[in-house]
């Protein structure tokens, strides 16, 4: 394939951010702190809000930090992030529409009798949890 002008050299691509190892280690350290909080939070308090924020809120922050700093999405073309968000959007769209059927145990003119029965079977345990 001689005589073609296109460049063959991928390796010429350099990291435009110029971050060194120190930067990555700093991010890693922050991630570890967040991680410790997310583990400790639910241990300290069984309050639902605390669990939600510490476990899932922090998961989102951590994912964001990994994506932005380790995957370098901040230096990527904008549309890469848009594509990823579009994919996430598809997932949430699925959740929103489907949860009306699957997550509910009854609705307009229907009820999920077997799901109710399953919940009924475990009622004792449910109360046990709520008392704790």
């Amino acid at each position, binding site marked *: *394939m001689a005589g*073609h002008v*296109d*460049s*063959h050299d*991928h*390796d010429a*691509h*350099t*990291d435009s951010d110029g*971050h*060194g*190892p120190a930067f*990555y*280690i700093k*991010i*890693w350290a922050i*991630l*570890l702190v967040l*991680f410790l909080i*997310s*583990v400790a939070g*639910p241990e300290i308090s069984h309050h639902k809000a605390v*669990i939600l924020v510490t*476990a*899932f809120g922090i*998961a989102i922050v*951590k*994912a964001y930090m*990994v*994506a932005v700093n*380790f*995957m*370098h999405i901040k230096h*990527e*073309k904008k549309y*890469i992030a848009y*594509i*990823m968000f579009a*994919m*996430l959007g*598809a*997932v*949430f769209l*699925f*959740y929103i529409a*489907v*949860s009306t059927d*699957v*997550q*509910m*145990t009854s609705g307009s003119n229907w009820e999920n009798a077997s*799901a109710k029965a*399953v*919940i009924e079977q*475990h009622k004792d*345990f*449910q109360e046990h*949890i709520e008392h704790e």
Partner: protein
Amino acid sequence: MGTTTPIATTRSVTGMPTGRLAVWWVIGSEIVIFGGLLMCYLMFRLKYPYWAMYSVHTNTFAGALNTFVLLTSSLFIVLAHYYAERKEELKAFGLIWATIFGGLTFLVIKGIEWTTEITNGFTITSSMFWSFYYTAAGLHALHVIAGMCLMAWISMDVLQKKNMHRVELIGIYWHFVDIVWIFLFPLLYIAK
């Protein structure tokens, strides 16, 4: 002929190297696979609060340790990328293998964890929570294994200073696997 790279591969109309563009699309397709599974799990989890009685039996310590292992391996692979770009192939090679070792540690911990759970009678058919637990974590573990194999293969090229850009590609993939675990961990272990 077989080994010649087509001109097509070397072009970069978008300004992004082709490999990196492709990896992002791979991740896009993975987002919907994992996302679909986790959304199914989430619907049932919110429908059946009693699943907490199963999730108390998950080993939070093992899960936490694995989170730490994956986070750290993510650091290794991003450093490997850093050195690969600077053509320091020995450092890159070492860091790639550190990452593979991280993946291995992850799998060993997972193995111990699963063995304990199965011997305690919590198998994939015990209840739907455990079905989701093994399916989601299993699918994730398959990705870990795939990533490790690819890294081992890439590391051979790195030693010869060939295809150094692939370190970045496998890195992006590995970070994605890490991110999936970041969400699996609270979903399966912490929410009790």
